[in-house]
């Protein structure tokens, strides 16, 4: 993901989203004649507007041997149109006081800029232009390929944690494209051609396969005509092919060992879990908070604080993905500790939560944490746009509405039930990073 270093959701396999939301009820939806959906949320607390174009395409849509294509295209979208010179886009946005970037995940490719109310029209025009007219210039293809390969070295090859995540993802899924890293395998990147990009662009970059999310200090009456004027002239494209791949049920634990130059062992457990279309999604959210939300959570308290087996520990669940996703537990070990011991301890705590009800107070504490982070998240217009965008990709933005109510309805029994159902050792992948000291060259 990552054309631009600001941020990145590289973790195609393990997407990360905080458990919090914007007030969905205030979002307004419009659909242009060409199929482009526009989602607007006014919020006047700071003088900025975030404008984002979300394409419903990511590494999930790639074919074997072409991994990294969606992300490569994202980079090349900055290489100009007949009216905007290569790299000129970023310069124009910056000159107008804005900040811009783009990122790719397994599900989506997103372009965005944050600017002042009086300048945001510039971004709207530029995004519409490159939706229809990107040149993907031949002469920029090879240098950009090198840039992406450097990006891969930086983020994955020289980063033990990411490398483990990539290896585990490739084993957790046998069939589903979530098994591939968003940035692509090094050789695949090497073998991609400009024609691959052109074909991919033609297939997926169309108004009917995209949506716009705008949040911040604008008025709907003012901005909607601007969006229409810029985008409505782009013709509807052919319906892009649907990805219909179902991962066959996992029967038996899978293990990945990665030996790599590093200092501390790292453990990752990835359990298959449903996305937010499932009614179990809210209970899984709460389960992750009970396990690892804050210093008083079960995993943190036992493994980091009391037993000092881990430096840090986390439990992550994000239902905001198009296809079924995962519930993961990750831990970096303290020096001198054995992965097997840490794994046993984690397993012990997971077994406990599968067999005994959490206390009423624990449940209340987890709810409080989710509710306060819900409020805190609204402090950022960018964060709100991201939330709307991810929901829209996965299940429709209206699902956001039901979230807090859903959280409030989850019972202690629900938490035990989903723990039992999904934290099943036969349906998990365990990855272990074993540090080696390579003979330095």
């Amino acid at each position, binding site marked *: 993901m990552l054309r631009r270093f*600001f941020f990145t959701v590289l973790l195609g396999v393990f997407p990360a989203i905080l458990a919090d939301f914007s007030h969905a009820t205030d979002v307004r939806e419009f659909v242009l004649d060409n199929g482009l959906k526009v989602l607007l949320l006014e919020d006047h607390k700071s003088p900025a507007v975030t404008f984002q174009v979300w394409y419903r395409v990511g590494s999930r849509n790639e074919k074997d041997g072409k991994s990294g294509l969606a992300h490569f295209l994202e980079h090349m979208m900055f290489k100009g149109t007949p009216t905007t010179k290569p790299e000129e886009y970023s310069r124009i946005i*910056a000159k107008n006081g804005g900040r811009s970037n783009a990122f790719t995940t397994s599900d989506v490719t997103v372009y965005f800029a944050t600017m002042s109310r009086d300048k945001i029209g510039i971004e709207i025009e530029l995004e519409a232009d490159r939706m229809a007219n990107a040149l993907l210039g031949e002469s920029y293809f090879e240098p950009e390929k090198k840039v992406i390969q450097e990006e891969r070295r930086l983020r994955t090859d020289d980063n033990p944690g990411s490398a483990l995540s990539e290896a585990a993802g490739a084993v957790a899924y046998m069939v589903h494209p979530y098994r591939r890293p968003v940035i692509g395998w090094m050789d695949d990147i090497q073998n991609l051609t400009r024609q691959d990009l052109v074909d991919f662009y033609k297939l997926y970059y169309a108004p009917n396969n995209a949506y716009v999310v705008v949040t911040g200090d604008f008025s709907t009456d003012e901005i909607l005509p601007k969006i229409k004027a810029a985008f409505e002239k782009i013709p509807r494209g052919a319906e892009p092919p649907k990805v219909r791949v179902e991962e066959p049920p996992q029967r038996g634990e899978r293990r990945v060992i990665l030996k790599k130059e590093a200092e501390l062992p790292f453990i990752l457990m990835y359990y298959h879990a449903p996305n937010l279309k499932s009614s179990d999604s809210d209970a899984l959210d709460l389960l992750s908070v009970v396990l690892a939300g804050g210093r008083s959570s079960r995993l943190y308290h036992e493994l980091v604080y009391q037993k000092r087996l881990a430096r840090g520990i986390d439990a992550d669940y994000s239902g905001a993905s198009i296809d079924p996703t995962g519930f993961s537990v990750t831990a970096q070990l303290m020096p001198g500790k054995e992965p097997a011991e840490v794994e046993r301890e984690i397993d012990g705590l997971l077994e406990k939560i599968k067999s005994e009800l959490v206390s009423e107070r624990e449940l209340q504490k987890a709810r409080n944490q989710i509710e306060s*982070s819900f409020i805190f998240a609204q*402090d950022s*217009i960018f964060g709100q746009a991201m939330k709307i965008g991810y929901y829209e990709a996965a299940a429709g933005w209206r699902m956001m509405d039901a979230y807090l109510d859903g959280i409030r309805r989850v019972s202690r029994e629900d938490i035990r039930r989903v723990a039992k159902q999904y934290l099943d050792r036969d349906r998990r992948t365990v990855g272990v990073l074993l540090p080696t000291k390579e003979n330095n060259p």
Partner: protein
Amino acid sequence: MTRHELSRMKKIVRALLGCCLIALSAPSAQAGLVPKRSVLDNGMVLLTSEQRTLPMVSVELLLDAGARHDAAGQEGLAHLTARLLTYGTRRHSALQISETLDFIGASLSAGSGYDTASVSMTMLKKDLATGLELLAEVLTSSTFPQEEIDRQKQSVLAAIKAREESPGDIAQRRFAAALYPQSPYGRPVEGTEASVKGLQQKGLREFFERNYRPNRAILSVVGDISHEEITLAFNQAFRSWQKGEPSGGPLIPSSHGAAQTIRVNKALTQANIILGHQGVGRENPDYYAVQVMNYILGGGGFSSRAMDSIRNERGLAYSVYSYFSAERGRGEFQLVMQTKNETAQEAIRIAKEEIRRIREQPVSERELDDAKDYLTGSFPLRLDTNRKVANFLAQVEFFQLGLEYPDRYPDLIRKVTRADIERVAKRYLQPEKLITVIVGNQQKSGEK
């Protein structure tokens, strides 16, 4: 992994922008920020900005309790002190504190840099009383229990080990050690294995007693509360916090390391490179011209010369940027990039060429205008969350810029001329003083 990645990202963003925190981010009257300042009876400076849209309050406290106070051999003392703040007070154990915080869904964290220690808290408005009470408690009555010291020492030792996994961190540490050979600024904030092992309860308590004092503190509060309300609440919660020794002035490094090349051999695919030297202090009147010049050289993201020549033209790096970080009485210049080992020398050569070019040839009018337009135009937009506003106000006070700083800033940038750029480039970019750090596979990244 995810959070790990995110925190690394944040570091990059900080590296990119940290220097320009003040330069690039500022509120303005039209942004609806109406900051207020007062000095409480106990000497603490209080800054507030009322933001009523969300029922939450963000607090940022800066204390003159940073690692610059660590004596040689005691490295890590300020850092460990800050870490232990939330691990036991006269009234509550570490466990009780974390249980309380988690139950209200608030965050409270403390850490230390070289010049200041900081405590950050975010909570819902309805939990303000609980939150402030806890904040007051950790600042006035932390007890540093031996058991918790032992725990946190283990954590710090693990962090010291873990930092060796990050080539960028290794390069930064080596650079600091080379630039500040005889100064706390050249030693890691978290200390070394030996120094951390040697830290004692007595030393921690003394450090806390001496430095965690209201007249050495800047408190910034942003959110659903007025200046008057917060003053009242603070006078109440902090009534037992007594003045101590006042803050000293800035600690100015007496010397800077000479040009040198430092190589760290590691089995990596990329060479992690820093080129840099002494920069300018925040009080230097050339600070603004330097920021504009650096924007053109390597600070301007995708609009910078370094990005153009190293990434866009040649595909040598994914990330390349430069910055002048400016602190009180000191500053540094760095150009940072990563490239595969085999192209390390080429990337260094081109980076040096860009440094030479901006010193020897005037920048174009267009480059200058672009830089100024970005710096001034993005100014009010960058403070788009309460947390950022809280940090900003504390920094404005720390650097004594005055609350009208946001109004002055655009002029400070706009008056920079091409001649200024040429002058500051010649003066503050010093190719003959460059310290070069290369962390990577030395066999592949060395001179051919």
